[in-house]
């Protein structure tokens, strides 16, 4: 079977089986409802044009109708005028609240409780303008000249930032978009890890690997789940756009299509990076129960990216931290869309960020495929990464090789349950010292503030310390037979 067909068939199974699951269907519907509902609510609530309901009693009131409409238009409001037969009917309607104010015989305004309201002002202004026009006409001006006198010249307004991006509407857009992006990346990344572990723990992988090479199996799984994930980003995204436009009101912020496109783009870019990392981790454990702890490092990095995007990049999109992290793999998928929407990230910077992400993905795919194919048949205790990656020269190499680090069940168990295999490989004192130092540095960095480069350097140092601590604790032990 060709590589393409193998990958296609594996991907097809993922799409068919997962889209059949009730959990997926319910999640999809909920997400769709949430997206459409959110878009409609945002469109109608954010820039909704209020409608003034005004009642008119008598011919002299009706004569003021064009003036009231002009006033409402000038105030940027809709107006709904109702002709009422009598003052009593008008009073009743005002009490009911079906109209806000009533104009009686063009000379009196009826309100329920407050004298100050946009409706009162509109009627007042219309009444005043009519009276003014009448007086000017009475003093001998033609209607045309009178109207001219009543239209004062407008003062030109210069807008300093006509395309301001760091607006409340855009920040909300980023907050929602980044949450959605992060959730989707984690959901589908973890789906890959769970899928890999499921195949490993159920041993079905042994059956699959007799005909499908590990790399093709991995590729098919990642692609299949990725296609589903992209559907779950694109369909609700497109539905939100359409619903937001149909909902009336001011519509969605103008940056919404761009934001959704960026979320979709960086879902794809981020998904490949995260999912192959998740797949590699999923291959190292034999039971779903072990997966949760094994995937913590990936999750920690993803949360860091999420927080950076939603807190730092969203408030200070062109600050140093946001600018730098936009180029860091694993952080860029969330930071870049935030910067692109609220900040001023250039297309060149975007291209560079994508290029770095793709390079990192290519490197990670090679690494993850190696981990995957060397761990997938190894059952028993968790496979140690160092052991998986340690190269061992072999004389023969068939078309697909699962051998190194792979052990039959009986041999694997005896080795991995060696006494002390799970014991910490770092003195507790050093462990605590490293962690404490990292925490102190992190607090110090936060206190100094993100606008200073030194703070960012301190935070990065804290992060490196934590990673070093983790690496020291999980470093592979030397084995006499490992070469």
């Amino acid at each position, binding site marked *: 079977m060709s590589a393409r067909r193998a990958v296609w068939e594996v991907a097809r199974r993922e799409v068919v089986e997962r889209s059949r699951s009730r959990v997926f269907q319910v999640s999809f519907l909920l997400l769709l409802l949430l997206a459409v509902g959110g878009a409609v609510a945002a469109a109608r609530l954010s820039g909704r044009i209020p409608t003034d309901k005004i009642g008119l009693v008598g011919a002299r009131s009706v004569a003021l109708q064009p003036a009231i409409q002009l006033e409402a238009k000038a105030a940027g409001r809709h107006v709904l005028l109702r002709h009422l037969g009598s003052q009593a009917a008008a009073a009743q309607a005002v009490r009911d609240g079906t109209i806000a104010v009533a104009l009686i015989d063009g000379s009196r305004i009826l309100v329920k409780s407050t004298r100050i309201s946009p409706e009162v002002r509109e009627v007042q202004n219309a009444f005043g303008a009519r009276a003014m026009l009448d007086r000017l006409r009475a003093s001998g001006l033609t209607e045309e000249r009178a109207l001219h006198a009543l239209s004062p010249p407008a003062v030109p307004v210069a807008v300093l930032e006509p395309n301001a991006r760091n607006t409340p509407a855009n920040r909300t857009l980023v907050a929602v978009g980044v949450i959605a992006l992060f959730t989707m990346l984690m959901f589908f990344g973890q789906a890959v890890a769970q899928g890999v572990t499921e195949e490993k723990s159920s041993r*079905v992988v042994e059956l699959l690997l*007799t005909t499908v090479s590990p790399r093709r199996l991995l590729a098919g799984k990642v692609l299949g789940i990725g296609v589903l994930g992209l559907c779950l980003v694109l369909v609700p995204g497109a539905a939100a756009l359409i619903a937001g436009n149909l909902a009336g009101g001011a519509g969605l912020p103008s940056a919404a299509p761009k934001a959704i496109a960026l979320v979709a783009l960086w879902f794809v870019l981020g998904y490949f990076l995260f999912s192959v990392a998740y797949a590699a981790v999923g291959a190292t454990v034999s039971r779903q129960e072990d997966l949760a702890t094994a995937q913590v490092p990936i999750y920690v990095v993803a949360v860091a990216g999420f927080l950076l995007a939603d807190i730092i990049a969203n408030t200070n999109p062109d600050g140093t931290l946001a600018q730098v992290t936009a180029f860091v793999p694993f952080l860029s998928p969330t930071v870049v869309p935030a910067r692109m929407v609220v900040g001023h990230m250039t297309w060149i910077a975007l291209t560079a960020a994508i290029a770095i992400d793709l390079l990192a993905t290519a490197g990670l795919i090679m690494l993850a495929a190696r981990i995957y194919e060397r761990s997938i048949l190894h059952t028993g205790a968790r496979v140690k990464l160092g052991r998986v990656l340690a190269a061992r020269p072999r004389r023969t190499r068939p078309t697909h090789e699962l051998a190194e680090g792979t052990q039959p069940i009986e041999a694997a168990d005896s080795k991995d349950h060696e006494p002390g295999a799970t014991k910490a490989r770092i003195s507790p004192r050093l462990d605590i010292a490293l962690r404490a130092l990292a925490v102190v540095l992190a607090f110090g960095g936060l206190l100094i503030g993100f606008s200073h480069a030194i703070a960012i350097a301190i935070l990065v140092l804290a992060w490196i310390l934590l990673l070093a601590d983790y690496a020291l604790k999980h470093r592979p032990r030397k084995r006499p037979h490992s070469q």
Partner: protein
Amino acid sequence: MRGALELCDLRRSFGAVLAVDGLSFSVLPGRLFGFVGRNGAGKTTTMRIVCGLLAPDSGSVIWDGGPVDAKARERIGYMPEERGLYSKMRIGDQLEYFAVLHGASHRVARAAACSWLDRLGLADRVSARVEELSHGNQQRVQLAAALVHGPDLLILDEPFAGLDPIATDVMAEVLRGEAARGVPVIFSSHQLELVEQLCESVVIIDHGRLVASGSVDELRGAGPRLIRVDVRGAPADWTDAVADVELVERTDGRVVFRVDESADPEPILDAARRAGSVTHFAELRPSLAELFREVVSA
């Protein structure tokens, strides 16, 4: 020879453990081939090497006159020792998927899946999920997964483990059927009576090395020639009258002699008749289980 599987001097170690140590044997097409050994003797490793799941450190596997490459592996049916199926996938879809991965079209794969489920008595469960099936039925699906693509070589790791007598019969019948189709069938088992009953050929391995191989009759014939005599009402010393034999066992009324391959058993029977009434007189051949204990503990 076309269709034959040959293992030549296979070696494979895991760290310090030598799992397979210079193993060579061949399996002829159309034969049921029993693969016997203690736990950890290297059976699973050998089978995994044949299926391409593991690479040997040295040695080669030749099937149909060539190495077992990706194309050849599509024609192998494999049943792993650790049973593995997707627990939440419908069994029809699952078998179709396995057949498709072996190169079949979806239509052909679906038809094969249905026909195997039908044959194994699961026709009405096509859309059941594996987790909804009983253990025995899961085993049937596992067997179907090994067979659904019409393999030209069957490798089954402990196919009879955990089967009830009825399922054992079904499995045995299917394996015989496959062998009759001209497929080399190699399976490992600890149920030696079953191996003895089913297989034309047997290989016994221990510590990764071949300790005995051949047809079941050959192997049994290679053991010591024993004669069992049951005599009622004979004095205890009647055996003294028999010459050129070695007394192996004596319980009340029953005696087992070890005799030379060329010896004539008639004088023994005559002596027994003279001593009392003979209720049983037979040549004893060691069972495969006895033979196994002997070669493996040696």
